[in-house]
């Protein structure tokens, strides 16, 4: 049971719970700057939990992953997004969530769903921190929900990156990280993706004069 675990393990569970909460906060956050702020906080939580896992299970190479995620997810990408938002003068723009209650309930459903999907995996291992794998899947799915419910390009990018966060968390808690090459490769991909997203903001704005991607609707299957 829970009380038989060390405080480190309990803290990992706590961080996992907080990461889920941060995903929900992102879902409900309509101000772009705050959204980015919550995303950065998620990056910090992620990095902290990775470091904790490294400490409790004695996997020194996870410290590198923790550092990597701190720099990339906690600092670099949020800062980049922040600067883009300021530079493009978007900080007052709102990306209102329609039917916030519905979205939240949808999110809760996704959490239940990912719990259900991951149950067979959880039952495999005596490690109780493995319970968090359903949290990581939930973060992935919540990121997807965020992308579906938002129309603003910046919000969609945040969703995209939080999906990456979820995947990273999954790797940390279930397998104590991926092999180093793979992890570096993924980090590289994420970095390049972030840069390309930055370029895209400018492209989108110059083509539709806004970052509301709902207005990108020239290509559809509906007959004109």
């Amino acid at each position, binding site marked *: 049971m829970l009380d038989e675990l060390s405080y480190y393990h309990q803290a990992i569970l706590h961080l996992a719970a907080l990461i889920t909460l941060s995903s929900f906060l992102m879902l409900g956050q309509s101000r772009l700057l705050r959204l980015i702020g919550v995303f950065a906080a998620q990056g910090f939580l992620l990095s902290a939990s990775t470091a904790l896992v490294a400490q409790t299970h004695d996997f020194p190479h996870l410290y590198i992953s923790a550092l990597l995620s701190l720099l990339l997810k906690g600092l670099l990408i949020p800062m980049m997004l922040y600067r883009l938002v300021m530079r493009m003068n978007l900080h007052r723009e709102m990306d209102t969530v329609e039917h916030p209650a519905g979205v939240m309930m949808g999110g809760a459903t996704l959490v239940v769903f990912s719990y259900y*999907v*991951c149950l*067979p*995996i959880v039952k*495999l*291992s005596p490690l109780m921190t493995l319970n968090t794998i359903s949290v990581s*899947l939930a973060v*992935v799915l919540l990121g*997807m929900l965020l*992308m579906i419910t938002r129309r603003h*390009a910046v919000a*969609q990018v945040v969703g*995209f990156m939080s*999906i*990456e966060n979820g*995947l990273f968390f*999954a*790797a940390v808690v*279930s*397998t104590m990280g*991926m*092999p180093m*090459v*793979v992890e570096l*490769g*993924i980090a*590289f*991909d994420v970095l*390049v*993706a972030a840069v*390309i*997203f930055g*370029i*895209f903001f400018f*492209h*989108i704005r*110059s*083509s*539709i004069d806004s970052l509301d*991607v709902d207005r*990108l*609707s*020239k*290509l559809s*299957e509906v*007959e*004109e």
Partner: protein
Amino acid sequence: MIAVYLILLAPLIGIAVLAVQGDPDKSRRYNIIFNAITLICSLWLAVLVLLKGPLLSSGKQLYIDSFNVYLVVLTAFVGFTTALFSSAYMEHEREIGKINLKMLRFYYAAYQSFMFTMFLVLTTNNMGILWVAMEGATLATVLLVSLYRTPEAVEAAWKYFILCGVGIAQALFGTILLYFAAEQAVEIGSGDALLWTTLFENATVLNPGVMNIAFVFLLVGYGTKMGLVPLHNWLPDAHSEGPTPMSAILSGLLLNDALYAVVRSKMLADRALGTALPGYLMMGFGLLSFLVAALLLHHQKDIKRLFSYSSIEHMGLMTFAFGIGSPWATFAALFHMTTHSLTKSAIFVTVGHAAQLAGTQRMDKIRGLINTQPMIGWGLLVGTLAIAGFPPFGVFASEFLILVATMQDYPGLTPLLLIGIGVAFAGLFRHLQPMVFGVVPEGQQAIVANLTPVMVHLALVLWLGLSIPVFLGNWFNQATQLIAGSMPL
């Protein structure tokens, strides 16, 4: 092994060289040269594998067996011919002012990056690197899709980026689960736990429950990349809005490589599970894509969208055939991968020229190709005939094989396939006929076009339809044995 390193190295050097090379004439030539090098190396590699059997690099990170080596050759070949085509095509685009020199330079560098990621996908033995390379392929091509900077192109690229990114994230989750399953099994050292060869050898000890979930995620992830319905939305847009050489290699290579990733995952899942579930999933998704895309062919207005739906349709068919999993079906699917790749890239090349000729991609504006420039008209006609599965082309042979294999194992599904093929056929031809034979609009003039790749491709497809060469048959046989467990012939 040197051949493999060279195949990977050539595009890497290509990226560096073409990124700094400002002179368009030179970079055009270099692009072709680098692709030629990889083609030669891949042929060399093919001979090696054919003679000596599977190759495993010293660090176990690269692995070549008869399944991926033939895809390497196919990739190198289509990459090479498309490079030939793109030099003329991009020159024309530059002349009419659609792109500038900087964009051109970027285009060539990105082309080589894309080739690099494709080869990495095919040759790597590490499921994690496979994912990284797959994502890399998106990153390399996404800015090419938006090369023209039109609102439509930007929209298509954004859709491509977002949908593929989200989709492929599922594949990473699957990969993590795979790693988890491997780590749970004591037989596997943790350093090798993501290597496909290790996983395959020890697949029987992997936990079936985890593998089940992992496979579903891998299928959904790489399936998005492959354009399986209902995750196909990005594909027609990305294909239609980018430069045509891009469409040719996306359709001819990227989709194949995504399918390759799925099949590799299925091989693991099959062995670990010992049930038909992975096969059923693939059959279901495949059949759905096949039928939906065949129906959607009728609704298209844009010529490149038309053929990208046809790509979805064929990918669906291959997925379905791999899903059946019998030696015959697998053989047919491998064969179909080849014929489709060759034909589809040839078609996109022709379509690109046709669009340049007419100055639009709208099919109701493209008329009378055969009168203005007979080569393009004939190329489009023959290519479409081939892709629709007319005898004596290779696609007919491979589709026929798939039908036979279906008849053997799931006779109830054959009518569906037949209907799908018929619907797709009608969908292609109702658009094709006026484009090729219609009244020539005023002022339509012939353009400079390089149709050698088209003819080479179509000739190859024709040859494959008439008879499968012995070495190719052997090749497919070996690959089939790897995937399905026994040979059909």
